[in-house]
Structure formats: structure tokens, C-alpha cells
């Protein structure tokens, strides 16, 4: 096992030096694709999740609906998509959105649903409309949990975006990752390493965004916890 591992490290290193350019280009495309999918998932999932959390009703239908779509392997979704919207960016994006959606939707629901009822009651008592309560009170006070969904979704999408190679959308790291025959395990792992870095860096960026979005008052309240 040790020997295998050592050999692998050499393989990965070699691959980087020889194919670094290509990996970078593919990495960029992977980022674009992932960002697109996560953005769409946010645009769809966040409002639905938040709304359902706000009214404390219909959660099972919304969350389960989003969830159940994922039950099929992403590859099957791609295959099914061929017959509906064909190959290309649309196909892989739909598959990735289906992957990311439940994460964002469910967490948005749980987050908003769990906002302190006293706070919400105060907001209602002030005559805020449902929408205003949601946007000005509920969402700002549950940023961490909402963002937990987004961050996990990002990692999931980056990690799965290699399936683009099966959707007629080439140029991502998937071209290497699915082709162990041509690139070898070293090449696959090198491309995987790039994906891991993208996932982690994106994750850090999102953590930064979370910190910016989390109101200071919430952090103070949390820090008031004695240790």
C-alpha cells in the first residue's frame, strides 16, 4: 500500500507538471459551471425554502419535492435529459441544480422556521408584512444556517460537475476524471485535487461571505455565551 501510495504521488506530480495548463483551464470552466448551478439553485431554492419556513406550512411537500428529485443518480438525470433538452450546458446545469436545490431549500426552510418566535411576534405586532418579516427579520437572523446549505451545495456541485463530460459539455475537469484509461489514476487524482482545491477555496470564500452577511448583533449574542 505504501509503495502504491508513493507511486501515486509521483504520478500526480508528473501529471501536474505536464498538464498543469490544461488543468487550470478546466478548473476555470468547472468553477463557472458550478457557480452557475449554485446560483440557479439559490434563486429557486432560497425563496421557496424561506417562504415555506415563514408560513410554517407545506414544508413536507416543498422539502420532500426538492429532495425526491435527487433520488436518481445524477448520471440518470443526464441520460433522461438527453431526450428532453439534449446535450450541453443546459443538460449538466439542470442535473447539478437538481443536486444543489434540496440542500439550499431545506436549509433555508429549517433556518427560517426556527427563528425565535418572540422576535417574529414583535415584527408581526409592528405591522410588517410577511415579506418584510421574512426579508428584514427572519432571513438576517438565520444567515449561518442558510449559508450552511449554500456552502455544502457548492462542494457537492463542484464534486459532481465532472459529470459534464457525460452531458456533451466538455472542457471541465471531468474530461480527465472520467478517463482513467487515458490519464491514469495519477491524472484522475490530479484533476480531483484541483476540484478539491476549488471546493475548499469556494467554501472559504462563502464562509467569508457568511461572516459579512451575518449581522454583528447575532455574533455578539452568540459570543455572550459563557464558555
Amino acid at each position, binding site marked *: 500500500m505504501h509503495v502504491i501510495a508513493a507511486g501515486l504521488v509521483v504520478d500526480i506530480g508528473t501529471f501536474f507538471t505536464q498538464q498543469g495548463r490544461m488543468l487550470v483551464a478546466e478548473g476555470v470552466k468547472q468553477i463557472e459551471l458550478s457557480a452557475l448551478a449554485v446560483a440557479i439553485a439559490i434563486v429557486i431554492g432560497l425563496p421557496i425554502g424561506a417562504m415555506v419556513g415563514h408560513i410554517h406550512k407545506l414544508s413536507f411537500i416543498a422539502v420532500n419535492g426538492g429532495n425526491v428529485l435527487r433520488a436518481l443518480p445524477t448520471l440518470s438525470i443526464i441520460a433522461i435529459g438527453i431526450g428532453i433538452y439534449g446535450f450541453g450546458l443546459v443538460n449538466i446545469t439542470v442535473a447539478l441544480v437538481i443536486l444543489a436545490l434540496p440542500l439550499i431549500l431545506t436549509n433555508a426552510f429549517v433556518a427560517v422556521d426556527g427563528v425565535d418566535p418572540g422576535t417574529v411576534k414583535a415584527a408581526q405586532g*409592528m*405591522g410588517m408584512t410577511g415579506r418584510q418579516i421574512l426579508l428584514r*427579520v427572519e432571513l438576517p437572523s438565520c444567515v449561518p444556517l442558510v449559508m450552511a446549505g449554500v456552502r455544502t451545495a457548492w462542494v457537492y456541485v463542484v464534486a459532481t460537475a465532472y459529470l459534464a463530460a457525460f452531458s456533451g459539455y466538455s472542457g471541465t475537469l471531468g474530461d480527465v476524471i472520467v478517463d482513467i484509461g487515458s490519464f491514469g489514476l495519477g491524472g484522475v487524482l490530479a484533476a480531483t485535487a484541483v476540484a478539491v482545491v476549488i471546493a475548499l477555496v469556494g467554501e472559504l470564500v462563502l464562509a467569508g461571505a457568511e461572516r459579512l452577511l451575518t449581522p454583528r*448583533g447575532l455574533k455578539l449574542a452568540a459570543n455572550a455565551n459563557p464558555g
Partner: protein
Amino acid sequence: MTHDETDPIAASGVRRQSQVEIEFRNATKRYPGQEAPAISNLSFTIPAGVICCLVGPSGGGKTTTMMLVNRLIDLTDGDILIGGASVRSANTTELRRAIGYVIQQIGLFPHMTIAGNIAVVPKLLGWPRARIRERVLELLNLVQLDRSYAGRYPAQLSGGQQQRIGLARALAVDPPLMLMDEPFGALDPITRSALQDEFLKLQERINKTVIFVTHDIDEAIKMGDRIAVLREGGILAQFGTADDLLAHPVDDYVADFVGADRGLKRLSLRRMRDIVHPDPSLEAKPNVPTISADASLRVGLSRLFTTDASAVRVTENDGTTLGAVTLDELREAVAAHRRTDGAP
């Protein structure tokens, strides 16, 4: 906003005219899963522009009553009319905007600064920035907090400070109706008395219709033009002026509630000014204690009873002497008052 017959709030003019009457008609609320109703057949009318204090036992349904008015919970039975229009058919958002609500749990928004908390409704109504800023400082001042608190967060405030922000927030747009659930419950006597005075001063200018929950019977006497006493199970025990309650409690429960020393409490309702008479002999006496003409008879009694002086000198705020009051005169004044209305 144009007058719209289908919108009870617009129709009742809550937003335009500042005085509205609140009428409870057999209002009843039963929480799901609970056998006994929290509020039973509550019927009474709070005239427009009046502060009605709501007192009653813990768990007696005061908070429930408040939340029925602004529809944070829905009536099980009966109705509540605001300016003649039923809350049942009101647009809840409109209704609540017209009502300032100070909730018992304070419920500040933890993610907003103090200024942000106070400015919530002005922002909703789209006030210009400068006006909001000014209003925030004005309100901080009103609730006796330094403007340096504007930038802090709720977690950095003491309990009483938070409560005062809750009050400021509810007052921000000067709503014609106020529901105040123990707004001063966490305040020390000095701050509390200052805020009571501020609020009464405000009320003199803008006659709001107010429902004010308190546990402090002295506060109810001071603040309430009317007092509604609830008993266990949300049943109305008595509704009337403070003097009614103190002088004629309908039963032992109410008598107990207003306190064994209710006789002394009643003294709080009258001022030294009302019973003072000129007394030329005062000039000769050097050691007579002085008391403001606006002090209550209770404070006068305290002075007289606990010093060796035979009389107190009553002075205007500018220092001019109005006259003197002796213990016997005080007692006589009280007795005369009692005889005219037949209280015990």
C-alpha cells in the same frame, strides 16, 4: 390613502383620526388543546383617547387580550371593534401598523442595532433618512438613554435598557393606538416614574387610546384613566376609574388586588393643591416642612405623619407659598370626599 368602505381600518379612520374607541364584545379565546378559555366573554369599551390599564393575575389573559386586538392571535368567539370596525375583517398589516405594540418579552431584533430597532417602522413607511435619525435620537432621549447607545446591539444592553428600547420602537411613528404589555416592568422606580411622566406628557398632546398592562397597582392608578381588572380565566372582575376601584371594589378579589392599604393609595389620586388653604400664621413658624402643591395627599400624609410638624407648607413650583395643611385638615378632606361618594 383613499377612503375605502371595504377596508375597516381605512373606513374606521384609524390612520387619520388620532382617537379611536376600542370595544370588546364577548371576546373569547380558547387555546388549542386547553380546556379552559384564556379569555371568557370579555365585554367593555375603552373610550377614545383614554389610557386603560389592564391588571389581573399572572396567567389571567392580559397578553392574550392584547394579541386579540392586533390579531396576533384570532378570536375564538365574540368580537373586538376598533373605531366601530371589527378586527375580524381588518387587513392585519394595516391594523398592526396603526397600533404600537410593546411586547412583554421585549423581543428586540438581535441582528439590528438599537437605532435600527427603533427605526424599523419609520423605515417601513419610507421616512427620509434625516427624519429617522432625528426621531431615533428624540426617542432615546425620551426613554432616558444616552445617544451613544444608538450603535449598540441588544445583547449589549441591560434588561431594563432593552425594555426601554422596546417602548421607543413602539412609539416611533406615534401610532394612534398603543398596546403596552408591562412596558415598565423591568425599570427601577426613578426611571419608571420619569418614563411614566414622559408618557403622560406625550398623552396630553396626542390623545392615544392605550391598553396598558401592569402588575404595579400604583402604576395603574397613576397611568390609567380606566382600569380593567381581570380574574383567573380571563373574566372581567371590574372596570372603572381608579377611584371607583379603590373606593368601591366589587368584591374581595378586587379589594385584595388593589391592596389592604387601598385607602392610602386613594390618596395618590388627589393633590395637595386641592385641599390647601391660605394660612397667614405660617410666616411665624420656622420649622414647617415644605411640600409641592403637585405632591399627592399620600406624600403629604407621609410628611406629616412621620415628622413632628403639626402642618406642612404647600408651595408652588416657583416657591411661592399657597398655604398650610395639618393632619386633621388632611383627614377631614378625605372624610368629606368619602362622604360625597359614600365609600367605606
